[in-house]
């Protein structure tokens, strides 16, 4: 089964959703385990240079099959319900439900050197967030707009949850085939349908734990 087989994509367009929902911005610095290996370049970037604006992935796109499909799993944790736990190496994000259960979603993570760990909180949520291509992407694809308001062709996807005061986000993608891969600049991406589901469950202020185990 190819990666593409694990993805359900409907290309039908839906009317635009409501304007970006901006919650109170509370810039919460990590209280422990500061972000690691977040290079200066990553700090400047808002997205991965390999992203392809203009590709369409609608809000119906979800991962339906395979390990990266959204599923209820056993998850031993003392964290309160509503906490997000990201296992970078495993390419999973867990939404803690309590009673040692969690909803698990497949994610795409930062490429080598752009992976990090830490404890942050969701500082803001936005629907169909805007996108600013990084300079090196403009160099390679000079026809791109220097700013793209949110929408289906936007690499940020259908939803974004901003992580503390960092440049990193949990967001959707217009490239759902990259779920399970490590190609971003440190952000965590889900298929649009999955990020919409997670977005609906997650509150501003929710605790987010990012765990990263080095791979041999």
């Amino acid at each position: 089964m190819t990666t593409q087989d694990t993805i359900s994509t409907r290309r039908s367009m839906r009317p635009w959703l409501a304007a970006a929902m901006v919650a109170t911005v509370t810039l919460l610095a990590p209280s422990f385990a500061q972000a690691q290996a977040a290079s200066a370049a990553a700090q400047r970037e808002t997205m991965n240079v390999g992203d392809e604006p203009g590709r369409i992935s609608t809000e119906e796109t979800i991962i339906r099959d395979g390990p990266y499909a959204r599923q209820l799993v056993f998850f031993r944790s003392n964290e309160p319900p509503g906490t997000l736990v990201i296992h970078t190496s495993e390419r999973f994000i867990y939404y803690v439900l309590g009673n040692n259960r969690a909803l698990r979603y497949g994610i795409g993570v930062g490429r080598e050197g752009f992976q990090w760990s830490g404890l942050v909180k969701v500082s803001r949520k936005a629907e169909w967030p805007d996108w600013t291509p990084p300079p090196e992407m403009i160099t390679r694809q000079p026809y791109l707009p220097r700013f793209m308001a949110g929408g289906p062709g936007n690499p940020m996807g259908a939803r974004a949850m901003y992580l503390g005061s960092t440049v990193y986000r949990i967001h959707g993608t217009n490239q759902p085939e990259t779920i399970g891969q490590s190609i971003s600049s440190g952000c965590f991406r889900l298929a649009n349908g999955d990020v919409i589901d997670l977005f609906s469950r997650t509150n501003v202020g929710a605790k987010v734990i990012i765990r990263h185990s080095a791979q041999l």
Partner: protein
Amino acid sequence: MKHRVEKLACVAMALGLSACATVENLTPTAARAPASGSYETLPADRLIGKWGMASYREEKDRARTERIARQCRQPYVIAKGPTDGVMMHVADDSQQYELALKRARDGKTYLGFATPPGDPQDREIVSMTDKEMIMRFVDPDANTRYGTFIYVRC
């Protein structure tokens, strides 16, 4: 090869436009109409320069998109072409081509190769002044993916 830069044969001789002319005020210069059909080409010199470039899809986003374009971050540079067109990109192609301003019989203005106005690779000029241009791709797919472009002169 879908690109037809080699076909470009636009003629734009008449200059001396008023500083704030809109698209509708441009003087047609199509003394030489391509064999494929009758349409007018318009002087494209007013496009030359550095522009802040941003895009939006919904009208509610237009004002803030315009504000961001006005910041001129990584400006888009439009240069004069070898003949009388301007060097610009088409959708999804990093190579520059010489493009011409063309006016269709229905009065709409397009920017693109030397093909009849409204070609799928054209941009439709929604509005144009010396300080700001608004365009969108004719191709519905490209238009959906990229939205409407605002260019603000830097």
